[in-house]
């Protein structure tokens, strides 16, 4: 019996105007998506590889250890995802590279110090020079979140209320069909009707995309695509359930349509962004950027004064029984033998003083870099925590859930950016360790990292320098995606159950 109902629903829908319009709009969007991806992706890959080669070359040009320690590894670039057509992930708002070319130099009477590099993350919108009007990218996320929610509503708003109005519902239930069976039949029938054009559009999209050599989909990619289809179907199912629920609860299809569309506008169009910004209002406030700068400057100044104090202390500390230069000159005229001995003593004392100064300088430079990075990192982490919390709040909207799930599938978006940041941090640790190890291998060196006199001067083979490579790893994003999928499925259950309960009690 249930097959019969599903079949009837399917034929009803497929012969309708809305089905044709659905097919047209889905195909147009999916083809556009594929074509634009084919046009823009090679450019993105080329830019990335050019950038990477550029920064590798600068790395190779830094042949001695001090330059490496001082200038750092150059810009570190984020590798673009070949699945960016699935989810753009707000590419325009996330930085594409992390720079590490900070530098200052300080000098005083008789000394000069130049800083080492540090990581800085950038705090301005990378999109700020774009004069074009703002718009959302037409990726799969756009197509799924907007259309796979809107279309099910158009198919279901009159599914029960319309039949009730016409009286066919009464007729249908007069047959030996239980209400649950009818509901399940309607649910599956509609879901399949919506998914048929979607799946075909997706296949067309993939055909166009895989015609190109730039994007090659691996087996793992195909597995992910299967998961994406699952996500899309449960998302569409949520809205089929919602449509049936409202439709079962209202007498007139006109009313159910208005209610459904308004719910849709609120949850799908507005909620993901409104909730995101609204939620930051009630979060513990972040330091403003000026406060952050001020506190960092204060800490740096403290280090600087410390250094100056200790430097002065070293300079003032006099070894007892040493002659001043003028006394020494006088002594040379009278007693050259003792004078020579005294002069040697003086030289030794100077050397000790010079050594102490060098140690102090190395310490200043290391502490300066450490403090800067610690502050930058703490601020970055506070920012990230804020966004994470906002993302949890926006998950009230199923559209946001789908967006996040698809982003982690495609290797784009915020989570991917976090992964990239982690790679950057791992790499910098490795890079610094490399410098320390290379330096300690050289017995000639004084092991004072950060100052030219204190470090190994042996040439470095450019192959030995660790190179930054940002590889997208899907394994750790898969967890969050599975969680999102579970969330979607449970939402689906809730709405279907709601429809069921209302329909069971409804008068026909």
């Amino acid at each position, binding site marked *: 019996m249930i097959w019969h109902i599903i079949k009837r629903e399917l034929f009803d829908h497929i012969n309708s*105007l*809305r089905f044709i*319009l659905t097919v047209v*709009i889905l195909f147009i*969007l999916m083809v*556009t998506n594929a*074509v*634009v991806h084919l046009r823009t992706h090679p450019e993105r890959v080329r830019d990335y590889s050019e950038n990477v080669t550029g920064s590798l070359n600068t790395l190779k040009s830094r042949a001695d250890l001090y330059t490496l320690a001082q200038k750092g590894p150059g810009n570190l670039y984020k590798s673009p995802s070949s699945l960016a057509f699935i989810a753009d992930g*707000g590419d325009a*708002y*996330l930085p594409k590279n992390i720079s590490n070319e900070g530098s200052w130099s300080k000098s005083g009477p008789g000394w000069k110090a130049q800083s080492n590099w540090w990581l800085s993350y*950038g*705090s*301005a*919108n*990378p999109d*700020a*020079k*774009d*004069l*074009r*009007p*703002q*718009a*959302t*990218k*037409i990726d799969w996320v*756009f197509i799924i979140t*907007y259309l796979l929610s*809107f279309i099910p509503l*158009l198919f279901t708003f009159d599914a029960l209320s319309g039949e009730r109005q016409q009286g066919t519902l009464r007729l249908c239930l007069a047959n030996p069909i239980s209400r649950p069976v009818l509901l399940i039949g309607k649910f599956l029938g509609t879901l399949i009707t919506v998914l048929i054009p979607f799946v075909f559009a997706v296949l067309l999209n993939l055909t166009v995309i895989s015609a190109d050599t730039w994007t090659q989909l691996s087996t793992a990619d195909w597995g992910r695509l299967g998961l994406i289809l699952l996500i899309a179907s449960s998302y569409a199912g949520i809205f089929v359930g919602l449509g049936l629920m409202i439709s079962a609860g209202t007498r007139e299809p*006109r*009313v159910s*349509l*208005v*209610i459904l*569309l*308004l719910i849709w*506008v*609120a949850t799908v*169009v*507005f909620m*993901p*962004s*409104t909730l*995101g*910004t*609204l939620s930051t*209002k009630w979060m513990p406030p*972040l*330091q*403003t*950027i*000026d406060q952050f700068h001020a506190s960092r400057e204060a800490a740096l100044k403290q280090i600087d004064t410390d250094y100056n104090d200790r430097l002065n202390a070293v300079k003032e500390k006099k070894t007892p029984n040493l002659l001043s230069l003028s006394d020494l000159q006088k002594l040379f005229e009278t007693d050259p033998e003792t004078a020579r001995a005294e002069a040697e003593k003086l030289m030794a004392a100077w050397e000790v003083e010079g050594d102490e100064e060098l140690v102090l300088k190395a310490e200043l430079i290391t502490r300066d870099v450490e403090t800067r990075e610690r502050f930058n990192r703490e601020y970055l982490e506070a*920012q*990230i925590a*804020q*966004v994470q919390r*906002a993302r949890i709040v926006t998950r009230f909207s199923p559209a946001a859930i789908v967006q996040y799930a698809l982003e982690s599938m495609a290797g784009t978006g*915020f989570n991917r950016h976090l992964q990239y940041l982690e790679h950057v941090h791992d790499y910098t640790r490795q890079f610094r360790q490399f410098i320390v190890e290379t330096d300690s291998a050289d017995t000639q060196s004084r092991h004072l990292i950060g100052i030219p006199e204190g470090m190994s001067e042996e040439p470095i083979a450019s192959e030995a320098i660790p190179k930054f490579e940002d590889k997208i790893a899907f394994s750790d994003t898969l967890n969050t995606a599975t969680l999102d999928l579970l969330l979607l499925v449970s939402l689906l259950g809730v709405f279907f159950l709601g429809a069921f309960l209302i329909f069971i009690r409804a008068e026909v």
Partner: protein
Amino acid sequence: MFRNLIRQELLSHLMSARFFAAVVITLLLVVANAVVLLEDYERRLARYSQQENTHRQKAQEAKTYSTLKLSVERPPNPLSLFSAGLDKRLGSTFEIYHGSVPLISDGSARSLDNAFLNLFSKIDLVLIFQVVLSLMALLFAYDAIAGDWENGTLRLVISHPVRRGTILLAKYIGAMVCLLLPVLMSLLMVLILLSTVGSIQLDGEDFLRIGGIVLTTTIYLSAFYLIGLLISTATRRTATSLMLCMFLWVALVLVYPNWSRFAITPVGDTRAVRSSSDQQIAQIWEEVDREEAQFLANSPLEGKPQRFNLDVIQSSGFSGGRRYGIDMKLSNQSDPLVPHVQKYHATMGALYIRSAEQIALVRKQTLDRTSLRRAIWHERLMKLSPASLYTFATAAWAGTDLEGMSDFVQAVQSYRRTLIDYFHDKDAFGSRQWFASDKGAVDWWDLPQFRFARADVSENATRALPELFLLLLINLFLFTATFLIFTKLEV
């Protein structure tokens, strides 16, 4: 009869569930977003005044003319609440320097407290009207004629001695009143919220601008209502007309504006234009370098520019690109050279100002042919949808559109000229205080202040006019078409 018809339409709409739902949802969205937007605006305002202070302090700290680091900041536009446009996104700090003319793309972006939050797109109030109320307009319209036709009430109404045009007009007026009610109510809510916040002061002109936005909203909603009415009249089936209306709405409001920006890249590859402009600029600089070398050849100055063979006791300053600032302490030995250095700086100052104008000309041409042209073409393509026409018209009223931004840049450019005039008045380029403060630092008491006033309402209105006119034209066309079909309709 006409009045009766209107009253009947009004009542049937006002008592309906859809009207109630529309009002509730609109108000909810407006209030929720207005709270966020207001706070955002306050934060931007605080940051603006703080930046202003920093800029002023920096300017006062300069001891010589060449070390003057002057920047100006674009104030946030209070009407960005309604239509954000480019106001929040484009860089807002402009450096004022005689050797370069700032263009619209030169503003440096302010650092944000949390730039990642840009991932959540900001919603302005106009967007809510654009999306929710256009949908409502179509929902009011799709069964206006078709529903009556199916019920048979249309036949009943027409049997009265009433013209068909009158029926259409009555339906139109009734629905428009119902659509405008949520707009006015949410406007009221926003104004109440605004009055609780002290930092936003709207003047009379701003209220006129808001009036302009409301007017545009009316025309926009009317266009959508008429689209629905046309479809309803033409199809005569509520089911068909509803589906056409809904898909048309998705296409016009949701898909097309994003699609056209995504799929179409106007203006093609601009790398050739850019590289040729780079060459031209390089040539201009070569010319400058040549003239500098010529000057130096005929002067007793030697060594690297700026310090030359002066006997410098102490010096400080900065340099970046071709710009540099110096503050030196000279010993008496270099006194005979000082007039030559003064002459050098006077010549270079004039040279830099001239080359800056030339370069600005080249860069402006390049900008007009690349990014600006691309932006304008994107706007034009988007304007094929009434939804985008509405966005751009409201941005023009609010002054947050491209032209509003260029207004500010023009003010910045004219401030640069004022600064140059001020330098000329003080004979700054040829003075010792250009490069040395040992005989007294510069007193900045009469440094001209930067002032920027937004364009007045009439200017905003002229900018919004083309879009408004197009929207009106769409209205007119739709109404005539509906009227023609309706008069020939067999009932």
